[in-house]
């Protein structure tokens, strides 16, 4: 995929003045004169075994040397964002559902959806201006990697997710509140709390899990802009640099890593939901 991008890797490395024969020789050495499909499959095979190849920009530096630490840093940031936002979103969504139609419901819904549409870096700038430059509560760059420095970027990432997760939690809870089985439970004489915990929430949170998983896709996308804004050397920054430098091995590996991560997360969510939903887990055996 990235290997289709035009630009001559060897030429990029050696510079414009290098003689053509040298360029050709290096291209051959790097394997860039082989047909595209062969190159791609070869690389894919290597990727699976952990050999990510070598950076074309900083040849012969192996890709993994940059990618793995960058990935770790990004996971730390993304993890912090999720930890912050998941409980808040679910709580917000359920609260909105319980106060359906009332101002607080409209408030949470509108605020949530508004935040979801605002680009992460815009959130970042506003947060930094207020809490960083204005109040000096947090540093304005995240290079140190400390939790303190990561807080603002994590919030910037997290705010975008709030809207969708809260909306799904809300929708699921509303549906469960109106369902016949909730009516049955209430009419048994159960306390409101028991009805909520045992009957409503068990059913309403299932679809929310799926949404959380799909939102991680947006999370990874947001990393690119946020890491740039806060100067954080994560995998997002790596991708941006690699694209600008036409460093295809790095770019390819980084992009594929993200794709795999996303697929793994959604797969785990699917499995979790199937396991929790008896209708899927157990087949009819009457």
């Amino acid at each position, binding site marked *: 995929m990235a290997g289709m*991008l035009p630009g001559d890797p060897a030429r990029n490395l050696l510079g414009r003045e290098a003689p053509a024969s040298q360029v050709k020789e290096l291209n051959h050495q790097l394997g860039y004169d082989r047909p595209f499909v062969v190159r791609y499959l070869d690389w894919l095979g290597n990727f699976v075994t952990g050999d990510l190849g070598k950076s074309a920009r900083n040849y012969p530096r192996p890709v993994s040397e940059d990618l793995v630490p960058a990935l770790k840093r990004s996971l730390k940031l993304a993890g912090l964002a999720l930890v912050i936002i998941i409980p808040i979103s679910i709580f917000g969504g359920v609260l909105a559902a319980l106060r359906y139609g009332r101002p607080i419901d409209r408030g949470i*819904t*509108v605020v949530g959806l508004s935040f979801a549409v605002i680009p992460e870096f815009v959130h970042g*700038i506003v947060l930094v201006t207020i809490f960083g430059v204005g109040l000096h509560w947090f540093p*304005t760059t995240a290079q140190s990697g400390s939790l303190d420095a990561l807080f603002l970027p994590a919030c910037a990432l997290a705010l975008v997710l709030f809207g969708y997760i809260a909306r799904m939690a809300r929708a699921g809870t509303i549906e469960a509140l109106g369902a016949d089985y909730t009516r049955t439970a209430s009419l048994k004489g159960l306390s409101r709390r028991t009805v909520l915990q045992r009957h409503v929430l068990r059913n309403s949170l299932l679809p929310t899990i799926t949404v959380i998983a799909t939102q991680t*896709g947006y999370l990874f996308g947001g990393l690119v802009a946020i890491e740039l804004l806060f100067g954080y050397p994560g995998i997002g920054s790596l991708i*941006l640099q690699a694209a600008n430098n036409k460093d295809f091995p790095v770019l390819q590996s980084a992009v594929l890593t*993200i794709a795999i991560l*996303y697929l793994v997360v959604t797969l785990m969510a699917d499995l979790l939901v199937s396991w929790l939903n008896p209708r899927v887990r157990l087949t009819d055996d009457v």
Partner: protein
Amino acid sequence: MSSSDDIVGASPVTVGAVAPAMRNRRRTERRELIALLLRSPAFMIGMVVILFWTVCGIFGDRITPYRHDEIVVEGGNLLDPSFRPSWEHPFGLDNLGRDVFSRVLSGAGPILAVAPLATVIGVVCGSILGLITGYFGGTVDNVVSRLIDAVLALPLIIIAIGVLQSTGTSALSLALVIGFVFTPIVARTVRSAVLGERSLDYVQAAKLRGERAPYIMFAEILPNVMGPIIVEATVRLGYAVFALVTLAFLGFGEVDPSPDWGVQIQEHYSYIDQAWWTVLWPALAIASLVVALNLVADSMQQAVES
């Protein structure tokens, strides 16, 4: 159990006893819908903001105090006190000495030129794809859905970066890339709406007239899914703006001296500590536009649902 508005009763044996309530119901329903929208504060606020930016976008330099590329103060830099926000320059000056207020106002133009185009491309292609996969189901649906899943596994920004690398960042290529990236998302929404319609009997009835697939898809099903499509289009418009400014921020937008908000931020974000005004106002402008678009989309969806 909500109250039922349906008038169910014996049909008249003699001709002419059809309930007079029949005709009026439709007109009042549409009027009620519009009235509902007009009463919704979210809708009104959103429309006002959108109209404001549209006017700014159309008239650009003709209504701003300074031209967007006009250098007001020569040879200064951001640390000069004169560059800070003042009565003369309420939003301050940027690193090249240009009036930020004027640039923010004209910044709507480039964005509102490309975003609708990208949206239309994405919605049209996505709807057709959604109709086809939703109607035919089976292998076609399976294969295309898997492809869509694969494409959507990658964050859209990353795909966009990848493609724009090679194609360059003209308005057209931006519109095409964003439109392309939207297509699978819209296709998914349309597909599920189509699946809902396909199980209804009027589709069977059409087949029992000998209707062919294209007729059923476009003349029978499409009118019934226009509602969700329109709502999705308004949502996509918001995200088109989102994508455009993010790409601009990452360096894949139009070039200076374009007043595109994302470009402005891209040029100044490293100065945020010293010159916060160069990035905060464009950021707030972005926020206002996308939130306004979203409010309108949301209130339309609410009105249609109730």
